[in-house]
């Protein structure tokens, strides 16, 4: 029953979010701040995780493909496809669900329990639209850049393994990441990430907006936001993959 109630409340909230802003100027003023806070501020974690995962994936793939029958470029190829198809979109979004999702849920939740949202409502402003629309817009706009950036950095991580160790040669690696490249994989990954970005920001906003009580409840809202958006990411990953790759 709770799931049905949550879906209903979430839909009603989104209905209030996706309307023309009361004051367009305020939306455009808010949007760059959110782009910076949700997008640019996520770059360091994207860089750190992508470079290490790219490097680790290259080492592990190489160790598991030590077979004279397999071509030398297979390590690069597997690393590239794993990064493009799954890591830079799905896994990165699961990580960002923790960072961005908890940020949105706790910010909006704190505004709720300190009556700041009531104060906005009292002024006759659609608080859901004013607070949530710039966040969803900003995160959805930034996500493709983060994903493509993650792909590039991840591949660089793999290259560094070749450059600074004798596990794989850079020539083999470079050949592998260029071999049988399918540009559609990048498109598929970006489309997936757009769906995930919407889910992370809207689900987190929903839990924050409906928080009540005190600091403990904001923490609970934040945890619920991360857990539920992660589950939804996995479910929609399956759905979008079936739709786009089957």
């Amino acid at each position, binding site marked *: 029953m709770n799931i049905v109630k949550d879906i209903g409340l979430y839909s009603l909230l989104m209905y209030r979010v996706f309307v023309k802003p009361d*004051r367009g*100027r305020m939306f455009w003023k808010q949007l760059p701040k959110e782009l910076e806070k949700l997008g640019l501020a996520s770059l360091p974690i994207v860089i750190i995780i992508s470079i290490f995962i790219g490097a680790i994936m290259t080492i592990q793939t190489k160790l598991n493909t030590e077979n004279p029958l397999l071509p030398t470029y297979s390590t690069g190829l597997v690393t590239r496809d794993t990064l493009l198809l799954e890591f830079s979109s799905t896994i990165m979004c699961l990580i960002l669900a923790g960072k961005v999702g908890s940020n949105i849920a706790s910010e909006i939740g*704190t505004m709720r329990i300190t009556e*700041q949202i009531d*104060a906005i409502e009292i*002024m*006759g402003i*659609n608080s859901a639209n004013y607070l949530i629309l710039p966040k969803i817009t900003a995160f959805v706009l930034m996500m493709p850049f983060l994903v493509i950036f993650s792909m590039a950095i991840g591949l660089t991580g793999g290259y560094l393994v070749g450059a600074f160790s004798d596990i794989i040669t850079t020539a083999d690696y470079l050949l592998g990441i260029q071999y049988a490249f399918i540009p559609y994989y990048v498109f598929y990954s970006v489309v997936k990430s757009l769906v995930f970005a919407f889910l992370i920001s809207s689900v987190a906003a929903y839990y924050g907006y409906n928080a009540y009580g005190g600091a403990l409840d904001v923490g609970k809202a934040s945890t619920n936001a991360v857990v539920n958006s992660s589950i939804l990411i996995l479910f929609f990953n399956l759905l979008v993959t079936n739709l786009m790759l089957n």
Partner: protein
Amino acid sequence: MIEVSHLFKSFDGEQVLKDISAVFETGKCNMIIGQSGSGKTVLMKSIIGLHRVDSGKIEYDSRNLPDMRMRDIRRLRREVGMLFQGSALFDSMTVMENVMYPLEMFSSSTRLEMENRAKFCLDRVNLNEHSYHLFPSEISGGMQKRVAIARAIALNPKYLFCDEPNSGLDPKTSLIIDQLIYEITHEFNIKDLNDFVFASELYKQVKKINQ
């Protein structure tokens, strides 16, 4: 005039407001007193429409709030100013930006005119220019209340609601805030509705919520 009649409100089956009727007249400071947990804030939030009531009438000059559509409620709320118990200032904005916020949302004035209006409101609540660029966390509780009053009166509201305006303040600051609300009510001819735990002699009309 705000007329409330036969108001009922419950949360999860628990009756909080039971058959409340009252009239809040123009130009007067009206006060609601009651024990902690008796439903003063719920009544006030119901009157503004932040809580949807189970039954009853809330008439703002003959406009019944429970019958209104959301769009009309929002229009009505633009005639309302509210001072919240915890001030409810926006953490991410400075004192000046907090007062400018309603003006930026609804005023068609130029930036300079809006700034002048915000300065006027801040000056009216006795806040000096030094505090204009500070964030709410950098000023005292009494100053936060004054900023909240300045924000509430920025758009010249017809109705001013104050939810425990003295909560958390020392007696001296409480008297200053009381005096300020009283003066502003008369100066701006506002219908003022206060929610106090302690009675104050400033308030002419007392609405008591019995448990």
